[in-house]
């Protein structure tokens, strides 16, 4: 319907974005009726998402004409941004930015590097940046889920963890059930995406390939390739982040740093 009213593509895009954002805001209103306040988070996320994607779109136009090696800088910047965004899910978990950035860099970075070297991801900037960004974005989400779950579990089980510490347990041992639960929970979306591929959803990349004239079977296989890479990048990231974050939940004297209602002491003794 909108296409018949708006012939200018830019105006059409903005109207379509407004319609989609209105759907998102409906959810906010429904949540508000149930005393769940998402207003600020969703408004900021919508505005930020639109601004960022338009900005990136504009930069991509320039990058398309740049040499391939410039994609390394673009992907590195994405990794730092992803580290910062997913660290926020860990709230006051100390060291979460460093852990997130390193984990995404190693997890997603390694998969991108190996797959590019093997030729699974084309080295052309038009392929490397979109596919690389998909891997980084999914690794970011998985990492955010893992840290958020770890933080919540540690807070909810502070008594059990301190009971284990009081019995002389190694801090890593005392949180191992929660590390495992965080890892498993964080990988649910990636596993379900693989499971439901082609049945519940046909991802955008495949649709794009079909629209650009690729053979349907190859488009389908490549979509599987992308999802398998997403799982590998997300899984590696989550494995690393849940291992690295353990150490940050404890002080050097093996005290649980993350407890409900705890505040930092005025001055730590030597």
């Amino acid at each position, binding site marked *: 319907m909108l296409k018949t009213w708006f012939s200018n593509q830019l105006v059409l895009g903005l109207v379509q974005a407004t319609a989609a954002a209105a759907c998102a805001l409906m959810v906010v209103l429904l949540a508000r009726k149930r005393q769940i306040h998402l207003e600020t988070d969703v408004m900021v996320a919508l505005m930020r998402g639109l601004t960022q994607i338009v900005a990136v779109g504009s930069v991509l136009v320039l990058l398309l004409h740049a040499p391939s090696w410039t994609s390394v800088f673009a992907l590195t910047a994405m990794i730092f941004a992803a580290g910062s965004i997913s660290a926020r899910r860990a709230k006051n978990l100390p060291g979460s930015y460093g852990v997130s950035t390193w984990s995404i860099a190693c997890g997603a970075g390694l998969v991108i590097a190996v797959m590019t070297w093997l030729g699974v991801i084309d080295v052309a900037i038009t392929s490397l940046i979109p596919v690389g960004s998909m891997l980084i974005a999914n690794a970011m989400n998985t990492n955010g889920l893992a840290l958020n779950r770890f933080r919540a579990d540690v807070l909810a089980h502070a008594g059990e963890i301190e009971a284990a510490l009081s019995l002389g*347990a190694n801090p890593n041992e005392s949180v191992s059930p929660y590390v495992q639960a965080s890892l498993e929970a964080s990988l649910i979306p990636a596993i379900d995406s693989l499971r439901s591929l082609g049945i519940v959803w046909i991802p955008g990349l495949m649709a794009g390939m079909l629209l650009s004239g690729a053979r349907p079977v190859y488009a389908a296989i490549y979509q599987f390739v992308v999802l398998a890479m997403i799982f590998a990048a997300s899984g590696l990231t989550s494995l690393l982040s849940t291992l690295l974050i353990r150490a940050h939940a404890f002080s050097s*004297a093996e005290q649980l740093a993350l407890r409900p209602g705890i505040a930092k002491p*005025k001055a730590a003794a030597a």
Partner: protein
Amino acid sequence: MTSPGPEPTSIVLEAQHLGRIVDSRALVDDISVQVFRREILAVVGPSGSGKSSFLRLLNRLDEPTSGTVLLESVDYRQIPPRELRRRVGMVTQRPFLFPGSVASNLRFGPLQRGETLSDEAVDLLLTQVGLPGYGERDVANLSGGEAQRISLARTLANQPVVLLLDEPTSALDENAKRGIESLIGEIIAGGNLSCIMVTHDISQAARSASRVMLLEGGRATRIGQTQQVLHV
């Protein structure tokens, strides 16, 4: 039931000007106290007086912002935390048993040092806490009093020299409470242990302890013989 008189020459644990300030508030304020071998020291005071905060400093679950603790004359910062916590065992208000069998809970502490508690040792501990034959039971099926006894046995499995009890009976009914009290008295009388028991129940402190420390606003306002401090 009152613990046997302390051996005054044998100081097991000594808090020296111990303090912890959080957000400009003194949770524990300059507490100095000595704990002798085979005594029960009760720490009493109103809610928020710093009883549990004080106890958590003694096995270094929290870090003091001032002062220190000597365990058998050694500054506890010189002792690796895991070894310190094995020697200064703690039983909390809620037992926090790990999922699984009673025996696996009892074996947890020794296992951290690579030791496997034998079936006989498990039976002995269970007999000591009045629950013989409970080894294979699932902890999910225990009553509150039984769970607290298992929590105590689990701590004893580590062979501590000091037992910290943080309101161990406050969640129990009167029968279970008296049972745990007499059990603690027997364990201290029959072993080489010292005990620091936090309680808000003055009559429990009078029944169980040989000495009492009264806390108010994080400060120790009185320390002495139970009768002198509590006027009982």
